[in-house]
């Protein structure tokens, strides 16, 4: 009996040790010599980042739908989108057609993603505060918004690591790069209708941008795994 127990303990220790080694390692672990850093492989990291992006997109879509059902009557959909409100990301030169996208480099893809992620950090914070102000905002909407802004931070972290690994570039994981002066969200609280319009616009733009991120990352993955077949035909 004792030998069996000892064996079991040993096996447990081995398994747990493996978990410890492979699991809870910070992503931005330094790779220089002397430091014991067990790092994750690039493919796995990319997979995780893509999963993050997919999840974020799905939740942002749900947020948009929730908001629409609650606050935006149908005819307004068109009006809102027709109005001169543009997503702030339009200012960023991001390719919009497949042919264009397929022609851009990996580096550009990654940087675009990073830029997008960082540009949405503050607007999401704003969204959280403004959604709180509605009387009958559904709890699901609030919680999802909060969740998304948290997840965005992890996505940013992952992309930063990816850039460092794939492109060998050091980059700072900070959202301060984005120009805050363009943010129209400081200070005053608009009226309800105006607020509704603005928030709805924000949510739709966010949905699009998350979809962009997801698409870019998937393209990147294909390129990483299968260079030949992923080239444009």
């Amino acid at each position, binding site marked *: 009996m004792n030998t069996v127990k000892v064996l079991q303990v040993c096996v447990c220790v081995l398994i747990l040790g493996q978990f410890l080694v492979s699991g809870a390692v910070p992503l931005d672990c330094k790779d220089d010599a002397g430091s014991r850093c067990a790092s994750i492989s690039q493919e796995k990291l990319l997979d995780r980042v893509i999963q993050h992006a997919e999840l974020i997109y799905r939740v942002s879509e749900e947020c948009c739908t929730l908001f629409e059902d609650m606050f935006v009557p149908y005819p307004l959909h*068109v009006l809102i989108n027709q109005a001169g409100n543009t997503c702030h990301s339009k200012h960023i030169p991001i390719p919009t*057609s497949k042919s264009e996208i397929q022609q851009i480099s990996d580096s550009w893809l990654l940087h675009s993603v990073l830029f997008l992620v960082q540009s949405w950090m503050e607007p999401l914070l704003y969204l959280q505060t403004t959604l709180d102000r509605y009387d009958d905002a559904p709890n699901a909407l609030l919680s999802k918004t909060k969740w998304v802004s948290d997840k965005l931070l992890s996505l940013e972290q992952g992309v930063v690591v990816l850039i460092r690994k794939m492109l060998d570039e050091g980059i700072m994981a900070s959202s301060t790069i984005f120009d805050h002066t363009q943010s129209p969200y400081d200070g005053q609280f608009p009226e309800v209708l105006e607020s509704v319009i603005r928030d709805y616009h924000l949510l739709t733009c966010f949905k699009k*941008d998350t979809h962009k991120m997801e698409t870019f990352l998937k*393209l990147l993955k294909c390129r990483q795994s299968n260079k030949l077949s992923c080239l444009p035909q």
Partner: protein
Amino acid sequence: MRISAAVLILTLIADLISQAAGVSPPGKPRLTSCRSPEKETFTCWWEPGDDGGLPTTYALYYRLENTETVKECPDYKTAGENSCFFDKNATSLWVNYNITVVATNALGRNISEPVEVDVVYIVQPNTPENVKAVVIHEDRDPFVKVSWDKPRTADTRSGWITLHYQLRVKQEEDKEWVEYDAERQKNYNVFSLHSDREYMVQVRCKPDHGFWSEWTQTTYVKMPNYIPRERSLWIMITIFSVFIVFILTWMLKVKHNSVKLCLLPPVPGPKIKGFDKQLLKSGKSEEVFNSLVIPGFPPTTDYDDLLVEYLEVYDNEEQELVLDGKDLSEDSMKSKSPSDSDSGRGSCDSRTLLLDKCMEGSGNDQHNYSQHGETSWASSSECSESQGSPGSPESTDGRMKTWPVVFSSPQPHHHYQVGATKPAYHSVPEILKHSPSHAIPSNYHQLYLQDIPPQEGRFTKPPCRHSQSYNQFNMDNVDISEAGVPPSRSLEYVEVQRVNPENILLLRPLSDPNREPEGSDRIDEDYSKVKEVTSNNTLLLQRETSHQVVNDYSQDFESYADQCTAQQTPHPCKPVMTQLHSQDMRVMGNGYVDTTVLMPLYKQF
């Protein structure tokens, strides 16, 4: 003024005419849907309104979000009637298109409602292609493997679009389809299809975010005729039955005793007081029945209950009989009998049984006599077995049991020849029988037994154990012919002094001056003479005055019937008994009536 007025009038007239003729400006067209099959191009379709009876043309205009330029549809033809096809160059992703359709005829135009479209959200792929369904025969039951290809236009290879597939199966006659999800695979195995049936299979696909494609054309597959090997059912049945058997066995084991009790209920032992199971086992039925005759008839459970004053009646036989028991029970047993009225127990307790029960064991212990140098009266293991503690003279204090009367000759130098063969009696003659006959060295025939209680010295305890009790024998006055014996007449006792090595009981009368003053001396002792020893090794005792011997005590109870006849008494046995009976109704020194004399006589019957 005039011209304008004229134009107005003309228009009105034209209107009226046209209305009369049934023509009108076109009705409002409606954009029905826009779809992109591969997220690279897209197509919009519209529904024309009423054409107003005149040829109507339709034009689609779109405007990209954040631009002011309105462009017209580049391609009306590719996608068919009332459609607009946007090719790759005209398609921008993540950009809203504001699309309207304008219907124009001779009389006017009509504009549809605008529609906002983002290409990314309107993806609906084409149907999968090349669906094949094949029946696979392997070691196990045959199944169908369905395989297909992706729609040609979808670019899944570069990761631009990711498709999920779904298939559904049913038989011709079924109403409902059964759907299976194939995720991103391009093949799927369908099991559990019935043999010898034809199935229909269809496949469709969907991008990550988008709409399901249409179902493919039906593919037919026919299952072969096979015998399904329903292994799982048999396995389940086997396991279930094993489980049940296991549970039953365990239950039986647990409830073993109660089941046994239920099926084979224990036979209740006889609960007749005085009934000895051991006797029954030994097969001596007469003895068994004899043992049923207890002194305490009618049977009583508690002797203490019978602390009733007794009467000494010498005339009435029956009363004597009854009273005997009571007297005996109350006086002789100072201590309460610890036992209940259970059967077999009274053997050594009751006087009558002394002869029987105690004798049973005495035979076992013949050899012990010489060991101790003294007799232990039928220190019967049997006796103790059958009764347990009650019979033990040691355990009870002051428990006196009267001995069956032993007759001994008044002449001390008589000794009793006893044969060594009969194992049964407790009586002195019997014991004397056990030991080889020798000349009695002394005048006394005594049996030394220890532990005689001082009070009841006259009474001897049945040596149901190996204990050695000082037994005294009641030397009865055999003068049975005399009725109405004066109460002063006492019983005669003989003491057993010792058993010499030759197994001779040395008796001496209690009135012997040499004797230790253990018992009361109030009793005049009568001795009975041994008339003779019969061929059956019985002692025939003789009374001086009486008729005949009462040799019942010395009889072997197996043959007391014979004894009766061998006795050669002119009286029938019964009268002898009754006479004895009356004779026995004497008050003893300390108020006892010794009816033990009677008991052997009873056994004659």
